[in-house]
């Protein structure tokens, strides 16, 4: 039994991503100290999405996986976006 396994991610790649995540965490906390009005939530979400993207792509190996994995993740997020969108179409116009 021999299988083609994806390439091994070097320690250094993980370490660099981790440093990036720490920096982004600092940025999130820093930006939150300023009053940007409604923009605060969106900036916070944007940075969180960036951090999540790094975790999914590198730590969870998605960057090296086949199209099947990428498409199904995209489909899940599209479903979630639909739930959020339709909920707000209801809630905002009651």
């Amino acid at each position, binding site marked *: *039994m021999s*299988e083609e*396994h994806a390439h*091994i*991610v*070097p*320690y250094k790649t*993980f*370490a660099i991503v*981790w440093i990036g*995540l*720490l920096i982004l*965490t600092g940025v*999130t*906390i820093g930006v*939150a*100290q*300023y*009053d*940007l*009005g409604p923009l*605060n*939530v969106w900036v*916070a*979400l944007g*940075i*969180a999405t960036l*951090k*999540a993207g790094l*975790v*999914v792509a*590198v*730590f*969870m*190996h998605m960057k090296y*996986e*086949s199209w*099947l*994995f990428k498409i*199904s*993740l995209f489909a*899940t*997020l599209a*479903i*979630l976006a639909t*739930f*959020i969108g339709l*909920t*707000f179409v209801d*809630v*905002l116009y009651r």
Partner: protein
Amino acid sequence: MSGHVHKDYTGAKFGMWLFLFTEVLLFGGLFILYAVYLARYPQEFISAGKELNVWFGGGNTLVLLTSSLFVAISITALRRGKKSLCLRLLGGTIACAAIFMINKYFEWSAKISHGIYPGSEHLKELQPGEMVFFNIYYLTTGLHGLHVIIGALIIGWAMILIKSDRINANDFVILENAGLYWHLVDLIWIFVFPLYYLILH
């Protein structure tokens, strides 16, 4: 034991991802609750959010990010034949989980001693939006904390399998899947932290 045992590396990993997608939808639902109530009670979410301690929240964020680093590196270590390094890294991940839960214990104890917990008399005296904030805070972080405990147990189980070489450099998908679950725990917190601890304005 001779004979060819059929293994499906891609299938095993994809199956885990399918399960993770259900978890995304589960916690996604809790984030939808947050979003709807934030839209309805913007000021109360800010005032209630200020009661949360950014040091606990931020500290726990760093702890989980580091725990994810450890479990990711542990897979590379195992595949490169560094079995004892792998086990020490996984031990480090479980230690991070323990630190996270200890932080949470102190954080929740402080809140509970001030009468802030679901169903308390004090909570009923707050503004409706503030009561909602704390209720979904406990719901979301409570469910997340349960996942931290489960994740730590799964990693402990993987460590036992690695020790007996059931998981090894040629057959490591169980460790990868345990790692995927753990990264999901980290991912959820990546969103929980700014939404609950950093809405200050």
